[in-house]
């Protein structure tokens, strides 16, 4: 269960988040949509503590993240970064197995590698890829390695920042299914940022739309089309004309 109350964040004069209220029940999948540069990535980073909000509280399972043990908290999270953020000094499998090889429950090398290869297979990458370096992969392949790394330790809460951007339609479908599977079968709580409306419908239980630093609309995915919010309608139908200015 993740709950945000009045979360605000400003960079210099750029007020990115103005007071976000949002809650996501355990075991559900929420998709966050919104224009480019509206602060979706910043929002996820605030929850993870990578960016410190100026105001507001963030609760995970009822506990204020500012006051809980950060290591214990982060151990429950997995995150796919928008840019992949793969460690370029390590091989692909070492990236994926990074978390598995550390900490109290560290796996031996051979076993960690097996798990990594299995995770790579789940994101549609062949075992041969395991021994390459991230710089030797295409952008979409890097994205999928990042995804494999995020899910490798089977975290309870997973954040995906644009998991299907840069993937072909078939691979997007595979990834959408994978995210759905992780939520349904493993019971994980997921928060996904995406611009791809097909993904939204495939992944989401709930949808939240971020606009101008606030949650403009939130509700179950089934209510999205019937909602009469003009901002939301403009966004999901990709219309150039509407209340959202196209030059931002």
């Amino acid at each position: 269960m993740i709950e945000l109350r009045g979360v605000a964040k400003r960079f210099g004069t750029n007020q990115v988040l103005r007071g976000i209220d949002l809650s996501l029940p355990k075991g559900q999948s929420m998709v966050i949509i919104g224009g480019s540069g509206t602060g979706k990535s910043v929002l996820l980073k605030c929850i993870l503590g990578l960016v410190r909000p100026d105001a507001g509280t963030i609760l995970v399972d009822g506990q204020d993240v500012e006051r809980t043990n950060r290591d214990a908290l982060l151990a429950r999270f997995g995150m796919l970064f928008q840019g992949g953020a793969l460690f370029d000094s390590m091989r692909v499998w070492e990236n994926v197995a990074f978390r598995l090889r550390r900490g109290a429950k560290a796996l031996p090398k051979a076993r960690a590698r097996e798990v990594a290869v299995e995770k790579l297979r789940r994101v549609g990458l062949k075992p041969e890829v395991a021994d390459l370096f991230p710089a030797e992969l295409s952008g979409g392949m890097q994205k999928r390695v990042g995804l494999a790394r995020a899910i490798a330790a089977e975290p309870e809460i997973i954040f995906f920042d644009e998991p299907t951007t840069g993937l072909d339609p078939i691979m997007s479908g595979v990834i959408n299914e994978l995210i759905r599977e992780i939520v349904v079968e493993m019971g994980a709580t997921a928060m996904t940022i995406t611009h791809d409306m097909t993904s939204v419908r495939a992944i989401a239980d709930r949808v939240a739309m971020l606009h101008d630093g606030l949650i403009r609309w939130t509700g179950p995915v089934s209510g999205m089309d019937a909602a009469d919010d003009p901002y939301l309608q403009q966004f999901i139908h990709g219309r150039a004309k509407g209340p959202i200015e196209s030059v931002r």
Partner: protein
Amino acid sequence: MIANLLAAIGRPVIAVLAACGRVTLFALEVLSHLLRPPFYLREFGHAVMQIGWNSLPVVAMTALFTGGALALQIYAGGSRFNAESVVPSIVAIGMARELGPVLGGLMVAARVASSIAAEIGTMKVTEQVDALVTLSTNPLKYLVVPRLLAATLVVPVLVAVGDSIGIMGGWLVGISRLQFNSAVYLKNTVDFLEFWDIGSGLVKGAAFGFIVALMGCHFGLNSGRGAQGVGTATKSAVVGASVLILATNYLLTGVFFSS
């Protein structure tokens, strides 16, 4: 007018002081992680190779030519007082006390502070540092501590190697161009060199190694966004490390030798 002038002088002074404060706080925070597990031995080994082994050629070349030039200069200067025979001992003392550690330190600053700052800075701007955090790994422990420890331990070794090669450079010049007898040159070197001449240089080397890694890591982790941010971080790391090395050298020399 005067106020403007004062402001123009004051602003950079305040900026420098603020930077010193930030570096000090950073150093204290890193030191607090030094002895607490987990320890990353692989990273440490990697850093030893990167900082120590890979710097050997540069440090050796620097020392060789410096030792040679030193012998020529001291010979020229000494001949004014008919004191050419001091060449071996002055070369040895000069290398061990000052030039070995300082030039070695500066070369390491150029080579290592820059590469650490660029590497960590790139990791920072490509969110790899954030990714480390989400993978339950403290960047200070994983990235900074191994480099800091490696540099502090390995630069004294580099200085020792540099001292020897510098003295050898002086000897080569001495016997080939200055008509010294090889055995006499070596005997003079050994007889007049005291343990603390070398020991003080090694302590300086450790301090310089610490400074180099500290500045590289500090500026890398605080790198601005994009390629320009990494460029600025790299430049600041090298400049900061070099200035700090020279200032620290003056302080340590004062502490060690002004009795």
